């Protein structure tokens, strides 16, 4: 439950919104002028303040100085969409906006972000979706907040399983777009039908087109269209997508006239930028149109401090769904932390689920398997090096250390653990290699 202050001089709106928020379980107070709101703000602390900008005795902006931004979040209620970017630029992350007319879904979403359960210690879900308090994730939250305030298209880059669709949903929620979130996987459509899926078709456009069909672009009107695996889209169709993005107009298959479309396109790929260029799977002009705002989503191994939160969250969900109360033993958590999770968050979730299924009904702790390795553990299975007779033990040892460090992104603590030596020993070895190199040069 949140304590809410609603400041607006439209009594019919204030009364209904206060009732709505109360029905959602929040405690609401109302004010209809800057003066009455100031009085309430002096004596009380609110979790969230809804603020109309045009009040009878002045601008709602005047109240921002009276609000503690450490404890309160502010939502500006505006009739003008252009205000939202100014709000974000002027007041930062604790101030957002709602554009009239307001819906119940928008109100609910605002409180999703602060959906923390202090009693159970459940992890905070940022934007109602994302779990993690590491530095890379906070940098990501900052980017989501910034891009959500704009109309820019977003291209997300990241390994398989990092949660690109979840980030796309977070952008959609943060933008408070009135339209829906429509996800689609470009790799799942046949080359013949992808045009019809994206842009729709008219009755009789082709054999089997027995009625008019609206495409994904139209379904996402005033919302967000998420195109996963965008690099799997046939090159021959990419000019059509480019035209739709540039002109904000599209033509259904078999139609003779264009129709306007208005939605943000968030696309994603698990190829990095270098691979996109080398594989020639995405037209350069389309890349720039999609990647107005590129976002790189970090792999799980780069934010291992988030793993306990994620594992606990997955376990909480399973416990809740099945009315159980398994816990994670600290020794098992350490084992989870020692694996590098090449399949990222998806692999972690599946491992927790698999462990949950294997756990005995009378057990207290989750039964974590002995090994997590999967056929896709590319980081664990680098091609075997030929063992050439004639090399010295020192040479082999040096190669082993170098390769191990490469596998763990030069993380010396983890490399030392895997090699079975102390970190100090590893540093000594590296120091001696540097000295040898210096002598040779």
């Amino acid at each position: 439950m949140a304590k809410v202050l609603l400041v607006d001089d439209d009594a019919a709106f204030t009364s209904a919104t206060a009732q709505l928020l109360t029905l959602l379980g929040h405690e609401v107070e109302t004010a209809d002028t800057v003066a009455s709101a100031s009085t309430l703000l002096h004596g009380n602390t609110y979790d969230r303040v809804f603020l109309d900008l045009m009040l009878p005795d002045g601008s709602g902006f005047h109240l921002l100085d009276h609000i503690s931004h450490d404890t309160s979040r502010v939502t500006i209620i505006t009739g003008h969409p252009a205000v939202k970017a100014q709000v974000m630029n002027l007041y930062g992350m604790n101030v957002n906006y709602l554009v009239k007319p307001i819906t119940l879904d928008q109100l609910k979403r605002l409180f999703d972000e602060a959906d923390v359960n202090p009693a159970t210690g459940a992890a905070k879900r940022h934007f109602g979706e994302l779990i993690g308090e590491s530095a890379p994730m906070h940098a990501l939250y900052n980017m989501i907040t910034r891009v959500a305030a704009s109309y820019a298209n977003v291209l997300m880059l990241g390994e398989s399983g990092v949660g690109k669709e979840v980030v796309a949903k977070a952008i959609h929620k943060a933008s408070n777009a009135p339209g829906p979130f429509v996800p689609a996987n470009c790799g799942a459509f046949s080359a013949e039908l992808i045009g019809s899926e994206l842009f729709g078709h008219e009755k009789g456009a082709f054999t089997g087109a027995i009625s008019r069909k609206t495409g994904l672009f139209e379904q996402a009107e005033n919302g967000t269209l998420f195109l996963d695996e965008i690099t799997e889209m046939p090159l021959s169709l990419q000019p059509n997508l480019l035209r739709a993005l540039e002109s904000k107009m599209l033509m259904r298959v078999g139609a003779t006239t264009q129709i306007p479309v208005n939605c943000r396109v968030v696309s994603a790929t698990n190829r990095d930028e270098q691979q996109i260029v080398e594989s020639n799977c995405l037209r350069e002009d389309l890349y720039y149109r999609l990647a107005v705002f590129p976002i790189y989503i970090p792999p799980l191994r780069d934010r291992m401090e988030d793993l306990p939160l994620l594992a606990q969250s997955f376990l909480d969900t399973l416990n809740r769904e099945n009315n159980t109360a398994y816990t994670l033993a600290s020794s098992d958590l350490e084992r989870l932390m020692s694996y590098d999770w090449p399949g990222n968050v998806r692999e972690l979730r599946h491992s927790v689920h698999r462990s949950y299924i294997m756990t005995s009904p009378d057990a207290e702790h989750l039964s974590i398997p002995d090994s997590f390795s999967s056929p896709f553990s590319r980081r664990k299975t680098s091609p075997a090096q030929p063992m050439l007779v004639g090399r010295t033990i020192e040479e082999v040892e040096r190669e082993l250390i170098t390769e191990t460090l490469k596998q763990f992104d030069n993380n010396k603590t983890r490399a030392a653990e895997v090699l079975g030596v102390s970190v100090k020993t590893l540093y000594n070895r590296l120091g001696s290699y540097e000295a040898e190199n210096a002598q040779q040069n």
Partner: protein
Amino acid sequence: MRNKTERFLHDARGPLNTISVNAELAKLLAQKNGAGDNIVNALNIILSECQRCNQILYEFGAESSGDSME
């Protein structure tokens, strides 16, 4: 003319906003038992806001006609 259009858009969103939250409230109340009076009240507000929005549209139409005649 641009200022007039912006003011019109702002004014028209006011009643639409009130209609929207009252419709949401009526919908939510309809799912609960014993909230008949509140539902009727919310629907009355929706109807009166429709009239207010209609008046704004009428005034904008009249002003626009005046502009085009000038």
